[in-house]
Structure formats: C-alpha cells, structure tokens
C-alpha cells in the first residue's frame, strides 16, 4: 500500500511540473471546464423559470444536485480523464508492454499515472460551487446526511471511472473504441438529470445494468431524505461488484493482449 502511495506522489509531482510547461493550455482547460459549469447551471436555471419542481426537487435542491455532479466531473477530469485518453493509444501502439512488465498493478499505473494539474484548479472551483449551493440551501441539512453525501460523491467519481473502463477495455479486441467511448459520453447525460423524472423501468435499468443513477442522483436523495441503509448498501454493493467485474474484464483483456499493435 505504501509503495502505491509513494508512486502516486511521484505521479503528482511529475504531472504538476509537466502541465506548467504548457501554460496556455493550462488556462484554456480551466476556462473550458468553468464554461461547462456555467452552461449546466444556466440550463437548470432556465428550466426552473417554467416549473417549481423537477423530479420532486425544487431549485435549491437541484443546485446541490448539479454542483455535486460538477464535483464528480472535476474529479474525473483531474484524476482519470488524461489516462483514459492515452489508454487506447498505448494498446494500439503496443506500448502497453512497458507497463505490463513493471512490478505494480498495470490497472493502477495506467488509470492514475497522469494527474491533470489544471483540472485540479477546476476541482477547487467545483467544490466551491457545491459549498455555495449547500450554504444557500434554505432548509436544514443534517450533518450525517452531509457526510454520507460527500462520501458517496467520491464513490460516484469512482463508479464513473469504472463505467468508463467497461467502454475502454474492448479496445484490446477492436481496432478502435472511439464509438464506444462516444457512446459512453452520450450515456453519461443520464446521470445529469434527477432520478425521479425517469419511469420505474428506466430507473431499474439505471440502477443495475448501467448504474448511472448511483453516481449522483441517489447520493443527492440521501442528502435530502436521510441515509436509508438499504439504499446506501445498494450503492456501495453495486460499486464493489462493478469494480470486481471491471478488474476481471481487465485481466481477461491483458491475457488477450498480443503486444505490438493489437
């Protein structure tokens, strides 16, 4: 465990020094993500000009829900996004060899080695928006609800990564996974809406087959309605099962990896 922590600290140092070399891109990416935050907030603000409730949530609640999603997106952009971008390239070029032979988990190395320092600033901004939306909330939010919410946000970011990996790994068998990744990003829009707007069958699918609602919608529900042990167990259980499934899928893919251009 210590070895992995030390390794991750090295990744951080290297990523920070490298991102400061490309100063213009550093700022472009920060502005881009801020623009995304503004667009998301404006979208829901305009919708609430025409309705008081959406999926059972009022405007103050939806602001917390959206801000929570922005934090998850920022964690993803900071910790995983660059690595997800490089993974298919490494597989196709046969460069994965260098990572497979190292004495650490290849999944750990390839998922975490590139930390986006510029997006880290966005993570601070997104966290600020979340704090603001929680502080301006007129109702009372219990501390225990808040603690569960913050914990499940981190779980949501991890689940987001696991789901994306299911769409990335097929690149070991196919020439390109561009279509699958595009499909994943289309499907992530399902996470960005409150769970209760979906019909019961859609909700069941989005809580099991493609557990998009477990990323932020259910954590928000736990924040507003209190920690339901069954719901929390479900969220954590599905995340754990998804992770085990993804790791098995990764190991299977590695066994099929034929080196020098798959």
């Amino acid at each position, binding site marked *: 465990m210590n070895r992995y922590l030390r390794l991750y600290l090295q990744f951080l140092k290297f990523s920070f020094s490298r991102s400061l070399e*490309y100063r*213009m*891109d550093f700022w*472009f*990416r920060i*502005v*881009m993500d801020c*623009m*995304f935050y503004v*667009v998301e907030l*404006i*979208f829901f603000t*305009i*919708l609430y*000009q*025409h*309705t*008081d*409730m*959406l*999926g059972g949530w009022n405007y103050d609640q939806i602001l917390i829900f959206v801000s929570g999603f922005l934090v998850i997106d920022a964690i993803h952009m900071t910790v995983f996004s660059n690595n997800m971008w490089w993974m298919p390239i490494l597989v196709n070029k046969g460069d994965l060899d260098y990572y497979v032979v190292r004495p650490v988990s290849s999944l750990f190395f390839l998922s975490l080695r590139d930390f986006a320092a510029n997006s880290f600033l966005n993570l601070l901004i997104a966290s600020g928006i979340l704090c603001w939306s929680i502080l301006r909330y007129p109702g009372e939010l219990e501390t225990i609800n808040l603690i569960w919410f913050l914990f499940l946000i981190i779980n949501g970011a991890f689940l987001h990564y696991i789901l994306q990996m299911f769409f990335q790994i097929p690149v070991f068998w*196919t020439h*390109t996974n*561009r*279509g*699958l990744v*595009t*499909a994943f990003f*289309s*499907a992530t*829009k*399902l996470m960005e*809406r409150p769970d*209760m*707007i*979906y*019909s019961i069958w*859609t909700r069941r699918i989005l809580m099991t087959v493609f557990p998009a609602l477990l990323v932020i919608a259910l954590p928000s529900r736990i924040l507003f309605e209190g920690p339901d042990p069954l719901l929390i167990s479900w969220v954590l259980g599905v995340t754990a099962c998804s992770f085990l499934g993804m790791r098995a899928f990764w190991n299977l893919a590695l066994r099929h990896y034929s080196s020098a251009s798959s």
Partner: protein
Amino acid sequence: MSPSLFFHLVLVEAKKLMSYRVDFWITMVVALVVNLVILWALWEAIFAESGKELIGGWDLNGILAYGVMVFLTGRIVRGGDLQMTVATDIYDGALSRYLLYPRHYPFIKYAQQVGNILPDLFQSLMMGLVAIPLLGISTTADVTPMSLLMAIPSILVAHLLFFLMSLTPQYIAFWADNVWSLSVMLRFVTMLLGGAMLPLTLFPESIQVGLHWLPFSYLFEFPTLVALGKIDLITWFEGICYCLLWSLLIGLLSIPVWRRGDLRYTGVGI
C-alpha cells in the same frame, strides 16, 4: 475551386468515415436512445409538475419534436470532429503539404468537412425515420414535406457558419500547444446560445432580444424551426441571408489570424 475536385474530396472523406462501421452504428443507436429517454422523461416531468399546457409557446409533443429535430440537425451542423484536424495539421507539420496545393487551405478543409457530414446526414435520416413516428401530434409544430425541403439549405448554411466559427480557435494552434479546449468551449457556448439544449423561447425575454443580434441562433434553432414548419417563406429567406452574412463576416475575421499564424509556421511540426 472546381466542383469536381470539391466533390472528390467530399467522397474520399465520407468513405474513410464509413469504414468504421461498428463505431458508426454504436454511436448512432446509443445517442438516439439516450437522447429520446432524457427528452421524454425531462419534458414529461416538467409539464406534469408545472401543470402548464404550453411552455415557451410549445406543447409537450411540440417540444419533444423540437428536441428530436434539433438533435438530428445539430449532428449535421456540427459535422463530426473534423474541426480538430486544422490544429493537428499545424502541430504535425502536415499543413506544409496543403500550402503547396494550388487551392486555398480553408476551401480544402471545408470540402473535407462536407464529406464528414455525409455519414451524419445518413444517420440523422435513419434516426428521424425511427424517432419521428414515435412522437404524437402537436398543435405547435407542423412538419411537412415543404418544411423539410426548406430545412435542407438552412442546415447547409448553418454548417458553413459553424465551420467558419471553428476556424479561428483552430488557428490559435499556431501560437498555443493545445487548442482542443477552445473547440470544446465553442461547442458548449453554441449549444446553449444556439438553442441546441433548449428552445430559445424558454430564455428570459431580455436575453432572447440579445440573442437575436448574435449568430448562434442560426446554427441550431433556425434550421429546426424551419423543419418544424414554424418559419414562413419570407422569414426563411431572411434567415438564410443573415446566416450567410454572418458566415462572410466571421470568415473575413479569420483571414488576419490565418495570415499572422502562417508567418509563424515553421513546417516541422511542434
């Protein structure tokens, strides 16, 4: 540029894209299903919870038709990911090859861009055939063969406008090491202010007035309203002219950026 050369480049680009068939179908099916699920769920919830029959001048079926149509036309207007190739040409030094051609670089890229939208056009047509019959009859939208015919030139000029808007951020690649973020930013802004995320009639009145004086609405809202039969012939003709005028203006603005950048270009890549 001769029309035969233009169409040759269009066909080459379209064939290249069609070769990735599995990707092509996966992207299409998932995008369509997700979009329909979200559109249906979101607007049904809003109409049910607000208790209103009309929102921003649309009934439920009308706004669903708008959502489907803006999704289909928007795919063509944005025309895939070709926008990044301008920056890639600059970074890789591949631009040198184009500078030797006896044709202006943006014209070649535009021909490739048009080739790039042919698969999107095909996909949108297929999706439309599946999705539109699922929608109910609306009192606020009236799709007719005439409105669909009028929509074709509206989409083409909107595509030209989007291409020209994308050029200047791509030319920044002469100075910056990575301009992907700029293209994504342009996409966010145009999607929101162009009506791709929501009909512009849902925006507050004062913002609608401001948006009227900007080019964004011609990208997504205008072609969609034309397809839905909400635009009469005179307004349609005016809209096409305004869109072309904006294209001309934005195209002219990109020329000095290109000239400046061209002077910095070393031809060896970055």
